[in-house]
């Protein structure tokens, strides 16, 4: 061939030039550039449609069934795939019979059937089924042999046949697009900072930088009069709740420009508040503390709606969680006797788990679909209880667990261990070992972590060295370490609706809001990638 179409392309000589040109032609056709496509076909002498397929197409569209069968026989040749060949011939036979019957040519149809059935190896049962299929089919309903209808049916047949014909006579649709997208997806896979589903540029190999994740302080919130122990964004990402050892909780509002301002200060607790939980519809907030009772607040007005139990009865609640209906909630007690109790928002007890099997509850969570409840018992045991099937799964960690957090899709959860590791487990229970993350400092205090970013592909955690640590799930060592706080960072929360917004709560009495950082300098990028 003159322009060397049997050449290979690519730096390693793995790509065949004639295949490359053929998928280019296919691409031009699929983009609608028919003139350019046929021009390229002429110039390169490679056509998108193979010769055999061209012949088949002609036979089908003109209703030349014998010719059609001949081409198919040649195409399938001595291919081992008898089943696919037979399926193709079956489809042709069916179309042929339908057409003859519509024309009213019953005897002709029967002749064809008698001749073809043994060739196709069709048993009596199959013949009967074919007959039923045809007689009852949609195509037979209209009375006239409309030529337009017949052409449409033939085109449909061609489409069905295309699916059965082997490579390289027919190539998959949009092949070039698929190959480019695969390459881009692979690049995204190794991009550790990747945090958005925006289209990426094809002009250079994809690699995101620090500007994709929260890495700079954009706001410092000062309102608490003592250490801030807990922070969490609402499910809508429009509010933020913080809890402090100053015995109050504060609801903040996230404005349109991502600035945060104080909305309500919730005062009623007599002891430090260490945990809050947003109802799934964000209209209610629960607050509780290690030595405190559980209180329910209305988010809009900041008014206290209900107090569960009372301090004299010693019903102290260490953590709580909501069910998807926003009316049922469950709480775990730090008192070994009180167990786990399910309430409704009016204060009625619905269900309780008490007794010797229920030790002190360190932390508690409910999956977003309301099906499973995960409880961390003092001090190394995680129990996953399916509320529907009543099946319980137990994971025993080797070191004490200080906190628990579930991913947004409810498929994974992380626990912070006082051995300075964060363990990631899957809810389904298929993993034998957890994924482990480390780098932060934790030995004395309860440090909390959370999932965040696009598709929960990141983890953030507080640390006793006053920094915030960020990991990409693909790497065990931290991706970024954020400095700013002057004392232990107790808790972090990633905005579920804004992958570039993170909040952290610290013993220095402030809450920091973190936003997108400045892009990496090119020299610093070498260490970013997985390869």
């Amino acid at each position: 061939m003159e322009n060397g179409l049997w050449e290979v392309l690519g730096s390693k000589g793995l790509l065949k030039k004639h295949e490359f040109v053929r998928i280019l032609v296919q691409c031009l056709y699929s983009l609608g550039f028919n003139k350019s496509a046929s021009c390229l076909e002429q110039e390169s002498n490679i056509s998108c449609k193979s010769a055999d397929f061209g012949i088949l197409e002609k036979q089908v569209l003109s209703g030349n069934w014998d010719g059609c069968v001949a081409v198919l026989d040649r195409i399938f040749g001595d291919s081992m795939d008898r089943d696919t060949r037979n399926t193709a011939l079956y489809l042709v036979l069916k179309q042929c019979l339908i057409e003859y019957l519509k024309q009213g040519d019953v005897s002709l149809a029967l002749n064809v059937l008698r001749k073809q059935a043994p060739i196709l190896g069709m048993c009596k049962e199959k013949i009967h089924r074919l007959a039923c299929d045809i007689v009852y089919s949609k195509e037979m309903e209209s009375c006239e042999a409309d030529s337009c209808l017949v052409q449409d049916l033939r085109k449909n047949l061609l489409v069905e046949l295309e699916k059965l014909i082997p490579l390289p006579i027919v190539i998959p649709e949009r092949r070039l697009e698929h190959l480019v997208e695969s390459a881009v997806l692979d690049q995204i896979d190794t991009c550790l900072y990747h945090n958005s589903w925006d289209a990426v540029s094809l002009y250079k190999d994809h690699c995101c930088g620090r500007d994709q994740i929260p890495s700079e302080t954009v706001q410092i919130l000062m309102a608490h009069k003592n250490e801030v122990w807990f922070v969490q964004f609402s499910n809508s990402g429009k509010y933020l709740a913080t809890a402090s050892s100053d015995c109050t909780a504060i609801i903040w509002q996230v404005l349109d420009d991502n600035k945060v301002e104080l909305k309500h200060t919730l005062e009623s607790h007599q002891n430090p508040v260490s945990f809050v939980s947003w109802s799934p519809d964000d209209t209610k907030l629960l607050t509780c503390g290690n030595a405190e009772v559980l209180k329910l607040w209305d988010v809009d007005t900041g008014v206290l709606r209900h107090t569960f139990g009372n301090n004299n009865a010693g019903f102290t609640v260490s953590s709580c969680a909501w069910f998807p209906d926003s009316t049922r909630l469950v709480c775990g007690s730090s008192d070994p006797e009180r167990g786990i109790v399910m309430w409704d928002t009016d204060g009625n007890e619905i269900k309780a788990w008490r007794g010797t099997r229920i030790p002190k509850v360190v932390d508690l969570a409910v999956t977003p679909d309301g099906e499973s409840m995960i409880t961390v018992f003092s001090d190394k045991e995680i129990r996953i209880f399916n509320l529907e099937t009543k099946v319980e799964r137990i994971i025993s960690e080797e070191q004490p667990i200080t906190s628990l957090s579930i991913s947004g899709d409810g498929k994974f959860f992380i626990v912070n261990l006082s051995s300075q590791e964060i363990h990631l487990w899957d809810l389904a229970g298929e993993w034998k070992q957890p994924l482990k993350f480390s780098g932060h400092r934790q030995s004395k205090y309860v440090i909390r972590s959370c999932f965040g970013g696009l598709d929960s592909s990141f983890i953030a955690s507080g640390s006793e060295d006053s920094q915030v640590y960020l990991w990409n799930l693909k790497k065990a060592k931290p991706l970024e370490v954020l400095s700013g706080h002057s004392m232990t960072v107790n808790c972090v929360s990633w905005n579920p609706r804004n992958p570039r917004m993170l909040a952290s709560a610290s013993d220095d009495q402030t809450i920091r809001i973190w936003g997108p950082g400045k892009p990496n300098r090119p020299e610093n990028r070498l260490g970013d990638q997985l390869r």
Partner: protein
Amino acid sequence: MGRVFMVDLEGDIYICKHCKTHLSKDQDIISKTFQCTHGRAYLFNNVVNISVGVKEDRMMITGMHTVVDIFCVGCGSNVGWKYEFAHDKSQKYKEGKSVLELFKISGPHDSNDLISDGDDA
């Protein structure tokens, strides 16, 4: 200082005299014959809810040891020390174990043992 994380122990336990934080269990006692400047002390296999101080080399009755002071996480009082490294082969069994001073803890022990031939502070 942050929300202190405390572990709870079951059974016969020893707790910090000041703040009642759980420290160890009766089952974890290895030896009851230790001495410190304030009097008797027990050697425990495992102690919880403590934070550690700086490593120090100390000369004791039984020889040179590298130890760290241990403090209750609840109130910060120095409740004893932990053996990190023993220079003498015969003392190796102490490595990784902790001594709690009876003066600093409450528990099911009898406080009328006065005689000892164990280690010193």
